[in-house]
């Protein structure tokens, strides 16, 4: 059967009756607040929803109050310093969290969007504002804010803990060695984690001093435990038998015992002895897998103290370590460093190579322990984000003759 259905049968008619909901009624009773103001903020029009939320009568607001009068003090400042300027410059601004103050003093968290209405001549006429109740969202935000603050506090505590722990792994102050200049530097790659780099310098019997500098694999608490063990083993072993290769053998034995059943940490170390005399200093050192120590000679030459065959300490039960000797004369500087330095990346792309380091140092000759660590520390600061590993530096120098006294 065809033909027109009667209006009574048409289910669409009820629907359109609903749609005939007047624009005015929609404005007044919309599920959000509507507010129109003059350019100076004076309220010109406001809908029933907003009046109801705030507990005001229409004639208490229209022509009498400004939009900013409805805001809390903080909101008013924010409005004057951010909201209004942006609205002027952009013609609109959206989704700004503010609080309205109701007639009874209650605060209503809202999200505010405003748009400037311009006339046919392009001149701004009035400001239309839509206001959404954001009470639920605000409590949710406050929850997030609290969680964020708690996380920030935890992070601060972690950083303090990490830096305290780090300090226990380094000597608080390097001792004075007669006739020599000594300088140490430590650059943490991250404030959150304890690095595995360490160094120390301490007197043995008579006129001999022992030193070491090294790098334990890994980071964090596990590495810190091994670093601590390594440090105390090296100090104790040096007292028992100061020969550097013997000290590294002792450490190797201790680390291999330590490993049973746990994640393996090993390290690279240079262990050495200084014997200063009237004209300079005798140096003997042994290395276990560590980048070679460098001597920047007074005349500009650079000696690389290679220790061929020196193995990682703690990796294998029967490791072998090689010893090398040299002599420091006035104007010479001995530098030990960990690989954070040569792995540092400049401009986040190219790595600072061992060759670049050596060229950099040669150009500094003659230098001193303090000058060389200062220069490298500055370089590390310039690398900034490019330094992704910790770096430790330890340097010794004999002052030029003129410096004596």
């Amino acid at each position, binding site marked *: 059967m065809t033909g027109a259905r009667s209006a009574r049968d048409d289910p669409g008619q009820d629907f359109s009756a609903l749609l005939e909901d007047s624009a005015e009624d929609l404005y007044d009773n919309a599920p959000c607040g509507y507010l129109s103001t003059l350019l100076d903020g004076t309220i010109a029009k406001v809908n029933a929803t907003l009046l109801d939320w705030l507990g005001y009568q229409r004639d208490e607001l229209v022509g009498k109050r400004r939009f900013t009068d409805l805001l*809390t003090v*903080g909101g008013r*400042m924010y409005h004057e310093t951010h909201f*209004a300027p942006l609205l002027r410059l952009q013609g609109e601004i959206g989704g700004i969290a503010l609080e309205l103050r109701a007639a009874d003093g209650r605060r209503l968290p809202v999200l505010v969007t405003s748009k400037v209405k311009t006339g046919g001549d392009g001149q701004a006429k009035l400001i239309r504002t839509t206001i959404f109740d954001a009470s639920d969202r605000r409590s949710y935000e406050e929850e997030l804010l609290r969680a964020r603050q708690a996380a920030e506090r935890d992070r601060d505590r972690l950083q303090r803990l990490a830096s305290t722990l780090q300090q226990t792994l380094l000597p608080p102050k390097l001792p004075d060695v007669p006739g020599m200049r000594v300088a140490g530097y430590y650059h943490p790659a991250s404030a959150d984690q304890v690095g595995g780099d360490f160094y120390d310098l301490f007197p043995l019997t008579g006129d001999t001093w022992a030193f070491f500098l090294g790098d334990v694999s890994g980071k964090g608490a596990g590495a810190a435990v091994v670093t601590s063990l390594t440090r105390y083993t090296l100090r104790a072993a040096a007292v028992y038998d100061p020969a550097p290769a013997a000290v590294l053998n002792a450490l190797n034995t201790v680390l291999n015992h330590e490993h049973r059943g746990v994640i393996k940490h090993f390290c690279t170390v240079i262990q050495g002895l200084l014997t200063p005399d009237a004209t300079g200093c005798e140096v003997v050192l042994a290395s276990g897998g560590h980048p070679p120590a460098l001597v920047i000679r007074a005349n500009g030459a650079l000696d690389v103290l290679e220790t061929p065959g020196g193995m990682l300490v703690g990796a294998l039960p029967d490791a072998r370590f090689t010893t090398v000797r040299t002599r420091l004369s006035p104007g010479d500087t001995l530098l030990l460093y960990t690989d954070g330095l040569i792995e540092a990346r400049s401009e986040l792309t190219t790595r600072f190579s061992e060759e670049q380091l050596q060229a950099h140092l040669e150009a500094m000759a003659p230098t001193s322990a303090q000058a060389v660590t200062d220069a490298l520390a500055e370089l590390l600061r310039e690398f900034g984000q490019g330094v992704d590993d910790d770096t430790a530096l330890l340097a010794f120098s004999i002052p030029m003759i003129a410096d004596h006294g």
Partner: protein
Amino acid sequence: MVQVDVQRRNNVVVTGRADGPTLLLAHGFGCDQHLWRLVVPKLAERFRVVLFDHTGAGKSDRSVWSARRYASLDAYAEDVLLLCRELDLREVVLVGHSVSAMIGVLAVNREPDRFAGLVLLAPSPRYLDDDGYRGGFSRDDIDELLASLESNYLGWAATMAPVIMGNPDRPELGEELANSFCRTDPEIARVFARATFLSDNRADLAAVTVPALVVDSAQDAIAPPEVGRYTHEQIPGSTLITLDTTGHCPQLSAPEAVAEAISAFAGAL
């Protein structure tokens, strides 16, 4: 000694007549140099106009900002002087809006010889009420403001933080500056708000020796007219112009009048 590149640090923009007298425009708490946009074209006809963003604001180099240094207005005044030295600006008329009016007072008092004059736009030497002084805000009000900055953390961060400038993959976003020039890092905004709203520079006003012009709005929720009058009365020999406009940013609500006031004052020096 590390050389500070002030021009880059403070996103310095120089425009206008190269041979004209120099105006240095300092924006206030909230946005950045964009706030001068409506007055710059007019001023540029007659003056060399130098614009900048305070450290921490706008397109300044935020990496040099630190909470400790910028906890007081002196740091901002030092930045202004450093900028003048680096650009070799002399006979400068410094125009400071809002808190920058007081930053300007601190700067001209330190190096009066460098400045030909000072314009204080919507200034307030002290926002807090005190015995016999009405700044317009109680301690509770200021605490509430600081707390609101705290609680706007998320709303602010969510609506304002998207970094839409300097995205090389999407150059079209450069056009869409929505909200970005008033984008404020919440941490920086908190420190700046504290430095601004807790400062008391009343005693510095009497020390101003350069010619000064005070310009304020008839209606200003942040710096009410009595504060403008107080500022004028305390600065020896200053002039006061109260504009028939509303709001804390007369350079936006009444740009012609502001440009004219600055121009007449600076042109007569």
